[in-house]
């Protein structure tokens, strides 16, 4: 298993491209090749809806959390020490 990990770590560009291709294929498959009648809302039928949901949601969570943290939630480790 370690050698497998090293194989991918030695080829970062290849790994990144492989992951992106996989994600892209899944998004295309999920948007055009399956039955969308299970969707609860109309907007779920927009192509690549859930990929964008993941992208925007992930960005929002990271940036909002970081923003709140920078407002003062994140503080030095000895904050509570006397």
């Amino acid at each position, binding site marked *: 298993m370690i050698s497998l990990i090293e194989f991918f*770590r030695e080829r970062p560009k290849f790994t990144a491209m492989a992951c992106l291709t996989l994600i892209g294929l*899944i998004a295309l498959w999920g948007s055009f090749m399956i039955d969308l009648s299970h969707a609860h809302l109309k907007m779920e039928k927009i192509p690549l809806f859930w990929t964008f949901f993941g992208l925007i949601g992930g960005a929002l969570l990271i940036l909002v959390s970081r923003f709140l943290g920078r407002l003062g939630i994140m503080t030095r480790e000895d904050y509570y020490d006397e």
Partner: protein
Amino acid sequence: MNNFWLHPALILIIGGLILPFMKGPIRKPFLLMVPVLTFVTVLSMSKGVHGVVQFIDWQLIFGRVDNLSQIFAYIMSLMCIIGTLFAMNVEEDAQHIAAWYYVAGSLGVILCGDYVVLFLFWELMAFASVFLVWFRRGPQSLATGYRYLLIHTIGGLFLLAGFVLRYYNTGGDLSFVPVGVDTPNLATYLILIGFIVNAAVPPFHSWLPDAYAEASVAGAVFMCAFTTKTAIYVLARGFAGMEILIPLGAIMALYGVVYGVIENDGRRIFAWDTVSQVGYMVVGVGIGTNLAINGSCAHAFAHILYNGLLFMGTGSVLYMTGTCKLNELGGLYKKMPRTFLLTLIGGLSIAGFPLFSGFVSKSMIISAGLAEHHYWAGFALLLASGGTFLLAGLKVPYYIWFGKNNCSSERWEKAADPPWNMQAAMGIAAVMCAFIGCYTPYLYNMLPFPVEYHPYTAYHLSETLQIIGGTGIMFFVLKRFMEPTPTISLDLDWFYRMAGRGFFWVDSRIFQFIDTCVGEIYRYVGLYSLMTISRFWSWFDWHAIDGVVDGTARSVRSLGGVVRRAQAANIQYSIFIAASVAAAGVLIFVFV
């Protein structure tokens, strides 16, 4: 008891009492035997009401076995086996006893049928589990333990007030049944607060990351499983369909993720993930349909296993390297490959990756929410599931196992896979996670309601994989904002920590100052006047009364002076004088 019924909790309690006498080679088999026996007892429980005890005017029910209590008792006792196996190299008996009593409390709550028994075991849980924090013996452990105990005692008091009020309102009803969520009254809300303190629902959640991150390595594995999921059980039993739980749970699911993103300590991240995941279950209870309650139970079941696995994995890192802070780790896949693989399975399960347990349990709650038109709650949970993948599937694995190696050389040398029993416990949990995800009837047949649900539809698969893919891309794009920093995050516990400190400040500064002032005033005003008055009376007594009346005081004083001079002489003179006086006395007595 009307007929003999062995309460599974009793096995753990008696086992805990016997454990200190188990020495040498039989100790480890005994450690495993007790939870296994408990599990077998839980499996053999027949449905119905057992263990009914008449106590004064009350009928106490210790064993109510039905679909709902069975699935929870099953997973709790199973987790007790895994946790004990993980903790087997802990030499302290007391730590095992605390863990077992804690599980006993949880089983007692799950099987009870009335509020008195519930309260008894509820408090047993709090008081046993606090020792798991104290046994860490870190610099913070004692204070953290007391904070934990304080919050749970307050929660327990709400529960007590609630069911006593309910007892009076209903004219003596103690039975623990659905509270009637359509007509809530004060008693309902008091009981609800008591329950949601244990479920770590905001604003009562701060105890959870505080305590779980400070607990001992094995202690955290137990703590992450029992308190919150027992609270989910009592909520599902009493408060199914309580609408206010839907927004609370949705907030909770996102709140945990937000704090997880900015957290640095690995175990604390999973503690925040616990808050987030329990949020799903709280939403499920709030929706209250059969599918939703099934979802909450299934998710609690799956969560106990993968959360235990994650705490075992990060606990192993802490155990082997001495830290769990992401900014001091990295690149450990080479040194701890098995721990890495097993923890990754836990991470994929919590993230709801297909073929793992989270996928088949989490989605039930979301589907139930969307089916009942709670769209924004459903979308909040979907967003939170993306966030969970961000944390447990990407952030923690990346910064512990891959990423830049920030280990000190000493730490790097120490890092290795943990002892066999810890690996075995993780292995069992990991196999269970994958098994639940692949073979759904195992879990679904245990659920309290017979509901048809199929997680592996093409639409659900594509939805999940797309969300995971999208958040995955964002993680690598925005990685510099996810970089762990050596910080802690302030939370609502700031208020009571600072309130405690404020109280101490008020006490030490203001009250101490007042006390000093009063003392000084007394010294200058009170004592001075008292002395003056007494000097006056002394003078008056001496010159006026004694002078006027008979002069006794003067005579005594002059006699005292003579005696003093006599006493100042050498001891032989004193003895001589004393003997002479005594002899003279005897002579006078005899002859006169």
